[in-house]
Every structure is written in structure tokens, then in C-alpha cells.
């Protein structure tokens, strides 16, 4: 039986046992060192293109915006900007709308992460089993993620319109139910945004899980069946532990994607009603960049970045702890 997390060093272990002679061992040690270095170099060589892309397109611009955050840069000509120290950082803590934005961003992130994981995993397991129409169902679930959020937002705006002429309200009306204020009630609007986000992303995350499910060696299940394990037992003892890495990936994507959410709430509700669905990213645009206060916008971005780093680091630690316990 093959465990999914065999360390790369496993293959090298027997070689050491052969080395009886001290001299031989010394040569081997030297060899290993050289091999280590060589391996390091090869692996770095493979990493170089990505590092170059990342540094040029993401990192340098981000470092620049850190510089901007310490100036009164208005977003036009940087030559006119003056150094203002941490004034921009002080300014953002005085803004109440920002707090509202932070609240909803966190709610959105947590809710979508939990709901999507809870739905996508069982969905993927089901889609991985055999049944009639499986390919059709797989396609359909995946296809929800296809249209861009910006377009979807407009369509959902029509579906969840608080007027009697909205799509959902038309149906409710036929059933004799009076119009529901979908997007014009703070709580319902939050619900709608999260609902649509779950709807749109569940298919993609199920597909991601599906890719991992396909990598679970069939022998594991064969063995378990021979041992008389039930479907439920197989899920708990084989599927779930094997899916921990996949869950780590999926949750990481959901967390980082959720924290940075912009398109959907913006097109659907523009942050309203009131500030009910206001997000941090919208704040970066509206109070910073869109107002010719690029410095403030950058400061907001940098602060937000730091918060996200802490949150994501926590998630990574928790995931690796779970992985260690299971392996």
C-alpha cells in the first residue's frame, strides 16, 4: 500500500545501509553534499521563471505602493508627492465605514469558506461515484463558475430584485406570497451576496476535490472492501484523511479570495443597503484611489495585507498540524 506522503528521502535510505567502510561513508557523505547542492540548484532553476514573474509583476509594484502609502501621492504624477510619514495610516483608523467593511468582509470570508467546503466535499465524493448522467452533472456544477462575477451580479440583481417584478418575487407572487425585500434589507442582502458566492464557487471547488479524489489509489478502497469496511467507514478512514491536503488548498483559496472580494458585492449591491455589504477592497477604491488619495488607498492596502498574512498564517499552521496528526 502506498501512503500519499512518502518523504522524498525514503529512496536514499537503503543506500546508507550499504556503506560499511568508513572511507566509503565519507565519500558518500561528500557525494550527498554535492548531490544536495546540485539538487538545490536544479530545483531553483525550475523555480526561476516563476520567481521572475512574481517579483516583477507583483512584488515590485507592491513595494512601490508601500512607498506610496507614506506619501500624499494623488495618483497622477509621483514627482509632486510629498513624504507624510504614517499620517495615512492614522487617517484610515478614523474611518467608520472601514470598520463596517471589515465586518462584512470577515463574515463573507468565513461564511463562504465554511459553506463551500461543507457542500463541495460531499458533492465531489458523490460526483466521483458512478451513476447515470454523471458527466452531465459534473459539467453543470462546474459551469456555474464560468460567467464572470461582474456579469453574474447584474443577472442576480434582476433575480433578487426587491420589486414585485423581480424574478424570485414573481414566482412568490404566483404562490400568493408578497414581495420579499431581497437586496433592500441589510440582513437579506448579506445573505444574498453569500448565497450567490457559494452558488458560483461550489462547482469549481468540487472539481478541485475531484482531482484529488482521483489521485487516491484505488487499492486503498479495494483493500478496505476486502476487510469489510462500509461506505461510511471508507469515507471517514480513507477519503477524509486523503483529502486533508486538498482541503488545505481549497480553504486557503477561499480565505484569500474571500478577504479580497470586490466584484460580486460591488455589482450586486454597491455595498448597500447602507453599509451592509461594504467590503475592505471597496473602501480601498472609494475612499482612497477613487478620491485622488492614492497614498491613503495604499496605506489601507498595506494594513489589509498585514491582517491577511496573519489570518492565512494561522490557517496554514492549523492545516499542517492536522496533516501531521493524520499522517
Amino acid at each position, binding site marked *: 500500500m502506498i501512503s500519499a506522503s512518502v518523504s522524498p528521502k525514503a529512496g536514499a535510505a537503503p543506500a546508507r545501509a550499504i556503506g560499511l567502510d568508513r572511507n566509503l561513508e565519507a565519500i558518500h557523505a561528500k557525494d550527498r553534499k554535492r548531490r544536495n547542492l546540485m539538487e538545490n540548484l536544479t530545483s531553483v532553476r525550475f523555480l526561476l521563471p516563476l520567481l521572475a514573474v512574481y517579483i516583477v509583476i507583483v512584488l515590485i509594484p507592491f513595494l512601490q505602493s508601500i512607498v506610496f502609502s507614506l506619501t500624499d501621492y494623488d*495618483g497622477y504624477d509621483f514627482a509632486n508627492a510629498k513624504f507624510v510619514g504614517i499620517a495615512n495610516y492614522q487617517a484610515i483608523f478614523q474611518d467608520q465605514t472601514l470598520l463596517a467593511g471589515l465586518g462584512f468582509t470577515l463574515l463573507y470570508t468565513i461564511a463562504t469558506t465554511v459553506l463551500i467546503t461543507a457542500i463541495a466535499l460531499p458533492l465531489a465524493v458523490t460526483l466521483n461515484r458512478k451513476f447515470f448522467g454523471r458527466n452531465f452533472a459534473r459539467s453543470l456544477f462546474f459551469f456555474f463558475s464560468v460567467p464572470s462575477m461582474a456579469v453574474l451580479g447584474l443577472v442576480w440583481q434582476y433575480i433578487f430584485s426587491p420589486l414585485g417584478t423581480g424574478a424570485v418575487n414573481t414566482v412568490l407572487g404566483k404562490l400568493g406570497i408578497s414581495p420579499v425585500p431581497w*437586496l*433592500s434589507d441589510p440582513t437579506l442582502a448579506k445573505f444574498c451576496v453569500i448565497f450567490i458566492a457559494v452558488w458560483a464557487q461550489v462547482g469549481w471547488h468540487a472539481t478541485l476535490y475531484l482531482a484529488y479524489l482521483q489521485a487516491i489509489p484505488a487499492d486503498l478502497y479495494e483493500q478496505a472492501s476486502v476487510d469489510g469496511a462500509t461506505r461510511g467507514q471508507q469515507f471517514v478512514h480513507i477519503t477524509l484523511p486523503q483529502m486533508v491536503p486538498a482541503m488545505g488548498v481549497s480553504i486557503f483559496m477561499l480565505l484569500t479570495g474571500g478577504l479580497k472580494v470586490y466584484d460580486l458585492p460591488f455589482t450586486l449591491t454597491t*455595498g448597500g*443597503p447602507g453599509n451592509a455589504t461594504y467590503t475592505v477592497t471597496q473602501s480601498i477604491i472609494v475612499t482612497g484611489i477613487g478620491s485622488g488619495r492614492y497614498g491613503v488607498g495604499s496605506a489601507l492596502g498595506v494594513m489589509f495585507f498585514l491582517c491577511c498574512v496573519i489570518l492565512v498564517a494561522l490557517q496554514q499552521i492549523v492545516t499542517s498540524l492536522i496533516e501531521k496528526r493524520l499522517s
Partner: protein
Amino acid sequence: MKSLKSLIGAGVAVAMIASLAACGSSSASGKTELSFFANNTQDLYQPIIDAFEKKNPDIKIKFSTTNGAQAGYQQTLQTRISGGQLADVYVAPPEQLNDLVKNGVAKDLTDESFMDRIGDTNKAQSTIDGKVYSMSVTAWTNAYAYNKDLLAKAGYDTIPETWDEFIDMLKALKDAGVDKPYLEPKAGLGALVEGWIGYDSSKQSKSIDQQIGDGDSTFAKSYTKYYKEWAKLFSAGVMGSEVTGLADDQVRSEFAAGRLAVMPSGYWDVKTFKDAGLNFAFGRMPMLHKGDTPFAPGSADSGYAINAKISGKKLEAAESFLDFLSSEEGLKLIQDNLGLIPATKNYTPDIDKTFTEPYDLYLKTGNVYLNTLGWPTSGRSALRAETFAQLQQVALGSITPAQATANLDTKLKTLS
């Protein structure tokens, strides 16, 4: 692995096509190419450009635009300037004019001959320290679009003069079976409040919003009474809190479908409503007291500016383009295609007869007012967005008008 190889093959082939396409795009004609960055779609501008190029065969206009609402245009303009990619001629939103001048990208147009045609109100809005930096040839005003058939149900044939009468009319419409007598879009709540502030400002040496911007007054002191009046819509039950979830287009669709009796609108909607086959007209926006001079939200439109960094033939071409835009022919094309109302000295536009009442009341007299013009430039768009967010909360009944104005004061402080 065959499929992977063919995939790579396809990728490389497309990359080659792409690089070839990039090489082939340079033109070799002797024409002066003038780049023009506008805040409206190409199909609307094309007739204007065609007419200009016909008159000036040695000039070629390279049109570009951006999507999204005005905020989208402003942000793209800002980004392009930051990268030194500003077009030769561009639309300069009044909100940004200060920044544009400060960064030296708007040419001083004060002494250009075509500026003589521009009306004083429009000139004033494009003036900084006595110099005019953009040529604004049109003006806009809000007005109430009303469905004549629906109004007739309650025995009305036009919008009444005062706010209380207006609310009475909406009540009567509701009683007459019009389910939605009046709706405002969520990002346009309380639009007519600006008309009231405009009238009260006209009696003072400095506008009310200027006083707030300068720190002589506060939103709490000056805005609360207007917001309280506006909130009557909800207490009287003629508009529901569902407006906090309605986008501009949704309100317009309701009106176009003949279900909505009155909505705040403007000249840009004339064509849409005509196409919908409605029996409609545009009327006044009611004032608070009988005898108040009618005012409405409105201002000069964004003007056309010339990139200060161009010179020689390009500059000449840019000047003749602006000259064309402010000529009678250009103005007529602007009106017909962009749906904007010319406001210059050299041309009296033919106004669609559904819009004559607001045109006579507001644009002919110049009795229009825009609150953002009094606010500090760097915070305008954020503060405007905040007014809507606050009014949405008033609409939901979660805060009072007084709390809303107090919150606006807090927001203003964070922006300065």
C-alpha cells in the same frame, strides 16, 4: 501525450500570430493622428468623429473610451496619467480638474478663440485661479419624468409646485391603484434635496456646501431639515425601503414598463422612454415652499481638455477639434448622439417637447445646483457615495436624518 504536444504547438503558433499582429499595426499615412479619450461609447461618438474627419481630411482621430460609470472613467484617466499615457484630447470631469491642473496635464484654454462661445456658468465651472482649463459645451439637469396616463388616474396632468402637494399627489396615485407611484435609485436617493439647497444657497453669498467645505458650517446644521423633509416619502408611505436595493437601471425599467408614475431622470432618458412607447413628459422638481424659485440638481457637463504636453501639428489638430465640437454642427451632433443639452452662446438647441418645462425652468435660467462642487476636491466622490449610504439607512429606518448628517460630518473629517 500527443494532445499535450499539439497543445504546445498551438500555443506557440498563436504566440507567433500575436507578435506578427503587433508588428503590423503601425500606420504609414501622413495624417496627423489625434488621440481622444472620452467617457461615452464609440458608437455614440463615431458620427461626430466622422463629420470632423470629413472636414479635416489630414487629421485622424484615434478614439478610446472606458467602461463603467463616471467613477470608472475617472480612475482610468488617473491611471493613464500616472503612466504618462494621456490622450491628446480628453474629457475632464470637474471633480478632477483641480488635480489635472496641479499635475500640469490640462492646457490653459482661456485665450482660445472658441472659448468665446462658451456660456459663463460652464466657464466658471472650468476655471481655476482665473484661467479656464476645459471647454464644457453642454449642461445637465435632473427633472421628474412622469407617466401621463398614470397621473391622470388621480386627476393630475403635471407635477405640482411644492413638496407637500407632490406627496399628496403620490398618496392619491396610490389610492387610485398605482402600486409604485414614485421610486428613486439607491445611488440617487434624495436627489431633489440639492435643488432645495440650491435655492437657499442662491440667497446667500456663499453656497451652503461651500460653507460646509470651508468649515463655516456642518452637515448637521444645514442638511438635517432637508433630509427630514425628504424622509416624509417613507412616513407617508408613498415610497418603500425597497429603494435601497434598486439600481438606476431597475428604476428606469419600471418606468419604461409603465408601472412607475414618477422618477428622477434627465434628458438622457428621453430616447429610452420614447422607444418604450410611453405617454410621458418631464416636469419640475417640487420646492419646499410656494413661491420658491425652482432649482434642480444639475451643472455643466464635463468639458473637453487638451493635453498640455502636446505641441506643433498635434496641438493645431486638437484646437481645431475643440473648435469643431463647439461649432453649430458639432453641437447639434453632440445633442443628437450623446443626448446632452448644448449650453453655449452661439447655438440654441431644439429641445424635445417632452423636456421643455425643465429646460425653461432650470437650464435657461441657470438655476441648477450640485452639492459636490462645494466640497473639498479630494473627498468628493467618497463623500457623495456616503450621502447615499446614509440616506439608505434613513430609508430603512435604522437611523434618523439627524444621525445621517452627523455621520456625514464625521466622514468629511476623515477625508480632509
